Each structure stands twice: as structure tokens, then as C-alpha cells.
């Protein structure tokens, strides 16, 4: 694979969930800037379908509602590379940045509303996204702002707003946390516990000093002060997160982060920052390719694409938790980690279990059974059946080491008493290659 082709495949993995081999062939001759325009062109995204009734039905158990919505989401994410899957990638990013957990909130409706917010506006002004997210019913519950009242403040939301949503530790002090909490008093739920309500009787109208600004500050003022008074700190915080999500791990002060801050700062648009990342020369270095591990959600979507299955077959909700990432049940308010975080023996064994299951489903389908007649008696060499197996999954040419591992397998199985199981192995093993596990 040429370096340019490798870069194109890399761009599709990072902007979405990876390209099938035929998609790659279709776009390999495009200029880089055209490709970046293509993957970021949100007008190419299909119309968002209606949320399935089961996900919205208050009479259904929460975990079933969450699973129904996960199906809806990941089936949507599993779309061609020229239909702006980046929108779903950003939705996933924001799900980790502004998380809520059904364990604490039991608020499926709120979680769905957040997910739809990320989808519809995640690429745009983060200030707008944040303003709406913080008064989402699930968020108000998750971080206890429903209990934040004048005189008896609850610091939970204010602290995470500063530490995890906008600035990161070290830019503010405990006094700022307390003052921000005072500003957010009274922002809670209505009497029916169904929607956001500002209760003036619970709001602290006194003077506060937050990040050096003094006044009778209200919650939304706090958000404005963060973005207006500490824009560089916020831009570094956000661009660091975005660089790590879309490119590779760096320290916050590294040049790559600084390089994209201007693009982001101008309008606080996440889409602008992503464009700057994709156009950054270091995004296209050999060190950047394969420098991320796919999160379980990304991996499961990629598997569905390569096996031509959907959520009704794969049932991602059966596997994603064991692999460490259930979108509506984050481990804590810090969301998920990246890279080695996902490379655990536990997750590896769940991948193996999933492939065992999926193989049985695919084998039943029948249409794959005759795609590549294998076995020594077929007269096809080990290399030929391996290439055929990869082509069958529409996996673009893999590295020499990965291909050799499959060839070795075929020769091993042909030499054993289990030669008849060659095709089974060739249905399993490609889905466990580093090419699928990494992004």
C-alpha cells in the first residue's frame, strides 16, 4: 500500500469507522484537501431517522430502552465513508466529554436528548452545545445540580464543569468552584421532574467573584466567563482532547495542540478544530497511523461494516460493556480513556467471544459459505485463500506481518487433523487483526 493510500485509509478510520476496500479504491485518487472536505461535509449525512418507539417508551425497562437506542445510533453510524460518519464520531466524543449515567439518573429520555444534541450540533459552537447540555434533565440529575440551593450549595456540577467540561485542573481554585456553584443555584427540575426549571427562590442573587469577574453572576454567566476570560485555557483543553481523540496522544502543551488552537478559538467550533487536525502535517506522519486503539463502539461499528451485519445481528449491547464501553453507563464523570485503556486481556477475550458468536450467525446466512472454497483439496494456496478471506470482508490490504499470521494459520490447520475447519478460522481471525483493533 502506498503512503498516500495509507493516509487515505487513515483519514477514513479517524473521521469515521474505517473504509471498506471498495470505498478506499473509489477515493484513493482524490486530493487530500478534497478528501478532508468530503469527510467533514455534514450535508452528506443522511436525514436522522425517527428514534424507535421502544427507546422512548417509559413503560419499558431502562436497559432495554438504552439497547434500542444504541441499535438506532450504531446502525446510523455504520454508513459509507462519504455520508459524514464524522457526525457520529463527534457524538461519541461528546458522549465521553459530557457523560451521564443511567445508573445514577434513570433518565433515558434525558440521555437520548443529549445524544441527539451532540448529533445535531456537535460539530458547531461548543458554547451552545454546553449551554444546552448543562440544563439537560439527565445532566442536572447526574451532577446533583437539582440539589444546589442558596445557602446549601452542592459543588458537584460546578467542579466538573470547570475540571472536565471546559478548563481542566489547575486553571481555577476551590474558591472559583464554590462561586460557580453559587451561580448555578436554583437551576433544577420542574415540579413534575420532567423538564428544566429555574427556581428563583432557590437561586443565590448575591455577589460572586468567579475567575476574577465580580457581580451577581448567574449560571450561564459562568459559562460565558469561562469562554470569554479563559478562552486560551479552554482552547488548549479542548484542542488537546480533540487531538488525542482524532490523531494521537500528546501532552497539552505540545506544538500540535497549539497549532490548531487558533482555528478552534475563532468560533469554538469543534468541526473547525477537526479540520485543522486533518490538515496538520503531523496527522499524516507514519507515527500517526495506527497510533490509536479503536474504542469498543468504534470497533463494533467497524465489524458490522466489514461483515455486512447490523445491530439486530451483532447486538452490540451484549459486548460493549464487557469490552469496557457502554455509552449510557460511563465508569464515571470523566468518561473513558484511550489507547492502552482499551487494550486489556478482558476486552480481548470479549472480542474473541463476539467473533465466535458472529461466525455462527454469518455461517447461517449461507451466502458466505461458498465465497472462498478452502482446504488443501481446493487446490488453492494458503496465500490465495487468505486474500480471498480478506476480500470477502472488504478489508483493504493488511500489513505483511498480519497477512503472514493468517497464512501461517492456514498452513497450520492444513497440517492438523482439523483441515476442514480452515474456513471457520478465516472467518474469525481477520476480525481480530490489529488492523481491526486499531484506528
Amino acid at each position, binding site marked *: 500500500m502506498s503512503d498516500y493510500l495509507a493516509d487515505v485509509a487513515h483519514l477514513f478510520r479517524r473521521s469515521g469507522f474505517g473504509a471498506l476496500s471498495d470505498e478506499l479504491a473509489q477515493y484513493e485518487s482524490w486530493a487530500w484537501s478534497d478528501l478532508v472536505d468530503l469527510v467533514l461535509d455534514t450535508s452528506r449525512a443522511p436525514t436522522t431517522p425517527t428514534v424507535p418507539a421502544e427507546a422512548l417508551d417509559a413503560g419499558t425497562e431502562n436497559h432495554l430502552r438504552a439497547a434500542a437506542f444504541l441499535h438506532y445510533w450504531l446502525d446510523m453510524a455504520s454508513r459509507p465513508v462519504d455520508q459524514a460518519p464524522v457526525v457520529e464520531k463527534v457524538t461519541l466524543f461528546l458522549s465521553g466529554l459530557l457523560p451521564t449515567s443511567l445508573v445514577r439518573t434513570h433518565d433515558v429520555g434525558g440521555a437520548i436528548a443529549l445524544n441527539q444534541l451532540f448529533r445535531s450540533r456537535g460539530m458547531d459552537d461548543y458554547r451552545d452545545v454546553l449551554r444546552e447540555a448543562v440544563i439537560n434533565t439527565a445532566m442536572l440529575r447526574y451532577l446533583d445540580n437539582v440539589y444546589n440551593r442558596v445557602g446549601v450549595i452542592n459543588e458537584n456540577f460546578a*467542579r466538573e464543569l470547570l475540571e472536565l467540561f471546559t478548563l481542566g485542573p489547575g486553571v481555577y481554585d476551590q474558591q472559583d468552584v464554590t462561586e460557580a456553584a453559587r451561580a448555578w443555584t436554583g437551576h433544577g427540575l420542574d415540579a413534575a421532574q420532567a423538564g428544566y426549571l429555574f427556581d428563583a427562590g432557590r437561586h443565590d442573587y448575591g455577589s460572586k467573584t468567579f475567575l476574577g469577574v465580580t457581580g451577581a453572576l448567574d449560571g450561564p454567566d459562568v459559562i460565558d466567563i469561562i469562554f470569554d476570560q479563559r478562552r486560551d485555557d479552554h482552547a488548549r483543553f479542548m484542542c488537546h482532547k480533540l487531538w488525542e481523540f482524532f490523531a494521537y496522544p500528546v501532552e497539552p502543551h505540545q506544538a500540535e495542540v497549539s497549532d490548531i488552537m487558533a482555528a478552534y478559538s475563532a468560533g469554538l467550533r469543534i468541526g473547525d478544530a477537526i479540520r485543522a487536525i486533518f490538515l496538520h502535517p503531523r496527522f499524516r506522519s507514519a507515527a500517526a497511523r495506527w497510533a490509536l486503539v479503536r474504542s469498543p463502539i468504534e470497533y463494533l461499528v467497524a465489524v458490522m461494516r466489514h461483515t455486512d451485519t447490523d445491530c439486530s445481528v451483532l447486538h452490540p449491547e451484549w459486548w460493549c460493556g464487557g469490552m*469496557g464501553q457502554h455509552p449510557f453507563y460511563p465508569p464515571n464523570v470523566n468518561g473513558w480513556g484511550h489507547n492502552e485503556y482499551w487494550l486489556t*486481556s478482558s476486552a480481548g*477475550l470479549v472480542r*474473541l467471544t463476539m467473533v465466535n458468536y458472529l461466525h455462527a450467525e454469518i455461517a447461517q446466512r449461507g451466502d458466505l459459505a461458498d465465497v472462498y472454497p478452502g482446504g488443501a483439496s481446493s487446490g488453492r494456496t494458503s496465500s490465495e485463500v487468505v486474500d480471498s478471506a480478506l476480500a470477502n470482508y472488504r478489508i483493504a490490504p493488511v*500489513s505483511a506481518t498480519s497477512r503472514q499470521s493468517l497464512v501461517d494459520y492456514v498452513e497450520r*490447520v492444513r497440517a492438523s487433523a482439523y483441515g476442514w475447519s480452515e474456513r471457520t478460522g478465516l472467518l474469525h481471525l481477520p476480525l481480530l487483526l490489529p488492523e481491526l483493533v486499531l484506528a
Partner: protein
Amino acid sequence: MIRGGSDPVPSSGSDAVSRRAFLHALGLAGVATALPPWLADAAATATPIRPDQGVVVVLTLEGGNDGLNTFVPVTNGLYYDHRRDLAIEPGDTLSLSGDRGLHPAMPFLKSQWSGGRLAIIDGVGQSGPDLSHFVQMDRIMAANRRDLPGSTGWLGRVLDGLDRQPLTGLAVGRRVPLLLQGEVVRGNAVPLDGGPIHAVDYADWAAGPRLDALRQASPTSDLGALGHDANRLMADAVGMALDLRAHLPSSGSDDPDIVRQLRLAALLVNADIGVRVLSVRFGDFDTHGDQLVRHAALLGSLDDALKTFYETLSPRFDDQVILLATSEFGRRVRANVNGTDHGTANSYFAIGSKVNGGFYGQQPSLANLDRWGNVHHTVDYRHVFADVLATWLGADPKGVLGLDAANIGFLSAPGTSTGGPTTPTGRPSGDDRRSQREQVARLYLAYFGRMPDDDGLDYWGRVRASGRSLVDVSDEFASSPEFLARYGALPDRQFVQLAYREVLGREGDAAGVDHWAAALGRGARRGEVFAGFSESAEFIASSRAAIDRLEFVGPLGRLYRAYFLRAPDDEGLSYWINTGMGRAEVSEQFASSSEFKSAYGDLDASGFVRMVYRNVLGRDPDGRGHVYWTSLIVGGTPRGSVMLGFSDSTEFVQKVASLHPL
């Protein structure tokens, strides 16, 4: 002391109880079955631990557990002022001492306290505490010289210095925390459900060549470092599954996550595959809101999980495993509307047979708070870890943490065959005579299959209270003629096998028999083996019903009934036992009580005896008995001695026993 009268001799009297009645099956069946031949090479990578090596289970309570509401300072008015509706009333706690009470959701932890197996270390924190969960969690997991978040964890750095086998450090569940990240080594993660482990099955669908392909995948990858890691990880994962599958059930469970986690942790120790360090994480303890309900639910699940852990853990590891509970911080002293915000110093706790039960450190003052209303720490958290390193893992605290061991004293060395007696000595005495007597009673059950007679129990209880260890007592039992007649001629291995059958009522698993036989081969005494069996979690669990009944049907419980016509309460029993008084002295005390005097005080000798017959034995006196006791009183015998005589009579012993059926 009249040794002759207190030798434990098997008896067919009323106290003899069939061992069968005590022992019931535990959920350990199937452990350590023979490995299928194709797994032999894989399993060979797992190396059992030595009997003098310790295993530590670090339980991280994520989100900031509220130590003040876990170990409640029941006499501290400031606590009640600050916590208001969130405070736990003294009467609602499980009493630990005069001024501390345990959260009511934790009866199992209370039992560990009563057994001298729980150390509570107060005031654990550091200078310059951060109120961020994530900064603070990274600091306590890193535990480095500068007390800053870092790229390695303190147990990861220990793993670097150990054998570097893939199973030495394990995280239970999906994630490998910073705690287990070393410079070189990183712990593996074991899936919570057995399904993925059992998915690695050479017997299934001719999977052998496929699994071999994964196990022998190229150690390098053209994709670079992460590709290399991904390949190696899959090979490790398949190898780990092969090592573990014989030891773990394939079925799932509906138990709460933490119960499943700690059960799995115990099974991983039982597997004896070289595990030294286990990480278990549980939360979310971040109770900013709805604290009373949420915290009680969390602690209740935790208590169930701890109970499950000790019910699952093989007895032979009881002296080699400690469980250390930490949290990134405690919670604000003053309550908010219905919860507490982030705080600072907290109570850590440790459980185990080698833990020296009691309070350590110092409770932070609630009068001297920082400007945010948080307490000041009294113990550096790294000092707690330093003692675990030095005492339990044989590692150098200076090298790992950058500071020396503090010798807080909550921990004794692991194992049975080196460095001192099996049973910790030096526990705070004076409040655990009762648990010492219970240990003696278990020893009787283990050796002779019956409960002790009163005199034997009193005698050996006093021996224990005088400072001699349970192993000392066990050594004496092991020299009894009865024991020698039954076991004396057997070679070590058969001795151990017979001990499994006789004491635990099951066949010894191969690894367990090997372990004990090897220990004996190195010079361990048979008394040590029996003490290990009798204090094992398995035996403690199976004998619990009999032990719980012990003091109710014993001399003190009978005196209670004889004097006051009611069963004693548990705390009353503990109080009188822990005074250390003999039963004659207790009887004198009871006789001088106003309750007794108001009931019997006006009666003459004859009337007193008649009344005692009716009240205690429930019948009128027979002629001879009436005359005998009346004449004693007239002759100057104190009424307390008469009561003791009634209380110790065979008739009353049987009556009380029937009131507490097994």
C-alpha cells in the same frame, strides 16, 4: 490449674454434636480439577505462591467514600452538628468501641471486627489534598515520592520487581487501573463473567489451530507499537484464559457487580496460579446527593461482597491474604441539602487473619477544619502502603514509594510456616476474650468433632487470654493421646488428606494437600495445620451456627437464665466474658444485683430453694434436693453458689440446650 480435668477428651455426653451437623457444602466444588492434557503446557506457566508469601487485594472505593458515616464517631457532638439529617444515630450503628460505631449496613464487617480481623486506620490523607476525583485518584494510585499523578502505580512498580509472570498482578473486570501499571509490567484484566474465559476452548469446533494462531501471533507488527501490543495482548489473553478456565465457573450471576468481583478475586487466589496483587474497584461513592439511601445501598452491597469473598476464599490462604480498602478522599464534614461534597482525609481499612484488629492513626479533629470545611490528615496514605509493602509483599517501601515503612502496626507477616505463630498475637486484649473462646471451641470441633465442655473451654480460654497463641493451644491438642491415636502414625500427606475429610468434610483439593504437605515437610507442626484449618473461612462459616450458640448454652448463658429467667443479649454476654471473671465470680455479681434481690431477697432458705426449683428447673423440689440445698444455705453457703450449682446441673444444662436448638 488442674490439667487433668481440662484435657480435651472426646465425650458422648450431651454436648457431643455430630460434625456432620456443622459442616455443609460450600460453593467450592469443582475447584482445581485435573487439567485436560492439551492444557498441560499452558497451565505450567502458572506458579503457585509460597506459604510465606502474602497476597493483597486492593479495594478502591471510587468517588470518595464517606468515612465519617462508615465508622461513625458516635460521641462527637460536632459530627452530629455538621451532619444534621445525614448523621447516623449512635443506637443505629453496630458498636465497635465506646466512641465508634459501624454503619448498620455492614454486619459482616462487624463480625470481622469482633474476630479481631479488622484494622481501621483513621485520618489517612496527605498534605495539599486536591478536591478533584481524578487528580486525587491518580495521586493515591501513583503514590510516588512527590505525591503527584504519574505514569506508574505503586503496585505496578512492585510487579516490576516481582517475577513478571502474567498472572502476578490482576485487575478484576474490564479496566487495568494505574495502580497496576509498572514501568515494565502491566497487570492483566480478568473478565467478570466466566463466559469469555470459557470461550477459549480447545474442545470446541476444532478451535485448536485457531487459538494457537492467536497465542503464537507475531510478537511484532508492521503497524508499530500498538500493533505489537494488540498482538501480544491477544496471546496473553488466550494464555490467561487457558490458565484460569479450570478454576472459574462459566455461568453468570445476577449478584451485584461488587459481589461478583470479590467472588472472582477469591477464586483467583484459590486457583493458586501465582497471584500476588489484585485490584478491585467499586463505586460510585460520590454521594453529593441522596446520600443516606445511596450510601447505605453501596455499603450493603460491599458488605455482602466481603462476606462472599471470605466464604469463597480457600481456608489455606486465610493467613496469606489481606484486603485493603482505600478511597481517593473522604467527604466534607458539613452536609449540603442531602449529601456531602468532596473532602480530604479518610479512614482506610484492612481485613485479614494477619491484620491486627483495632484502630490506628488518629481521627482528625472536627473542630479544626481548613477554610473549605475539610479535616487535616494525621497519617500519610503512603505510610499505609509502606507497611503493606514491607510486611506483606516483601518489597522495599523506599524504592517503591520514596519513604520508609512507618510500622503503623496494623499488619503481621503473612503465612503459617515462617515468622511466628499462625494467629496474630498482640491484638488489643480485654475486649476479645469472647472471640478467643470461640477460636478454642472451633479447635475442639476441628480436633474432636464436638463442642468443649465448660471446664475445658474456661481453661483454654484463660490460656489464650494469658497471651499464648491459638497455635500453642493447638500444639497441646495435637499431643493428646486421642489425636495421636487417630493421626499419629500417618505420613504427612495422608495426615493432610484425613484432616480435610475430618475437619472440612470434603476431599482435599490437590493443590491444598500439596501446600500443607510441603509446609509439614519444611518443619511446620501438625498443630499449625489444624489451627489453620479451624480458623479458615470455610470452617468458620460451616461451624458458625454452633459457635454462635456457644456462650448462650455455656455457663454464662445458663447463669443469665437461672438468675433472670431470660436469654442473655449478645452484648451482655460479651461484656461479662470480657471482664475475665470466672463463673463463680459472675454468679456473686448477679446475686448482688437489685433485680435478683427484689425477686428473692425476702425469702428464707427453704422458700428460696423452693422458688429456685420452680423458676429455674420449672418444677417443685424433690425432698432430698430441698433438704440438701436448704442445709447448705443455713450452713453459710452464699446464695450465689447455690445458683451456680443449679445452673451447672445436668438437668438445667439439658434444658438450656433444648432452648437453643442447632
